[in-house]
């Protein structure tokens, strides 16, 4: 349980950092016009021009939501013990979000690579890692689900 609590704290800190990051970026974009203010010719190199940067933001938001579900699931584990139906639901949602985010992000990276005719640096490793985390979460969901079933049967053994 100690390791679960450590993981819970790490994820909680990550969520707080994510929020600070969003707030700071929003602040810089609206109140500091010189921030990321590149000439129009610079943006014309990208697939969606100026809006290309917001695609990554969309993936970040999805990752944030998934992290939030992982945090909730771990919170339930801390309160009610390892095997329960509630946390398996939370983990399943987070696993699916991680998997979708990782896949979409990887496809986006391939699209950018194709669009830039191979000029992009190779950086798809984090997306693959996200896919692996998503699959890992789904495996954990199955383990928790089976554990819950075994626990239930054990509790009903007189």
């Amino acid at each position, binding site marked *: 349980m100690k390791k679960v609590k450590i993981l819970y704290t790490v994820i909680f800190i990550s969520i707080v950092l994510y929020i600070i990051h969003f707030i700071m970026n929003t602040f810089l974009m609206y109140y500091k016009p010189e921030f990321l203010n590149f000439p129009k010719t610079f943006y014309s190199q990208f697939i969606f021009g100026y809006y290309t940067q917001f695609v990554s933001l969309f993936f970040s938001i999805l990752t944030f939501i998934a992290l939030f579900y992982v945090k909730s699931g771990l919170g339930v584990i801390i309160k009610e013990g390892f095997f329960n139906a509630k946390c398996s639901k939370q983990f399943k949602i987070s696993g699916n979000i991680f998997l979708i985010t990782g896949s979409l992000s990887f496809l986006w990276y391939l699209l950018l690579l194709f669009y830039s005719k191979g000029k992009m640096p190779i950086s798809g490793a984090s997306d693959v890692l996200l896919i692996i985390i998503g699959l890992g979460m789904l495996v954990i969901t199955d383990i928790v689900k089976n554990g819950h079933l075994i626990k*239930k*049967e054990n509790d*009903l*053994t*007189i």
Partner: protein
Amino acid sequence: MPIQINLDAVLEKRGMKSNELADIIGITTANLSILKTGKAKAVRFSTLEAICKALDCQPADILEYVPD
């Protein structure tokens, strides 16, 4: 479930109450209630042995197979 628990009938025959049996065999009344209502998924041999000893009966007196 096709396995029926006839614990109530045996208890009545012996003139014993559920909580008395629970005390003798060392399980909670809540668990004995789960057993009596047929909600239990399994019965340990040790529990069955304790019940048979306390009620002076055979396992077949408590458990009965009734096809669906």
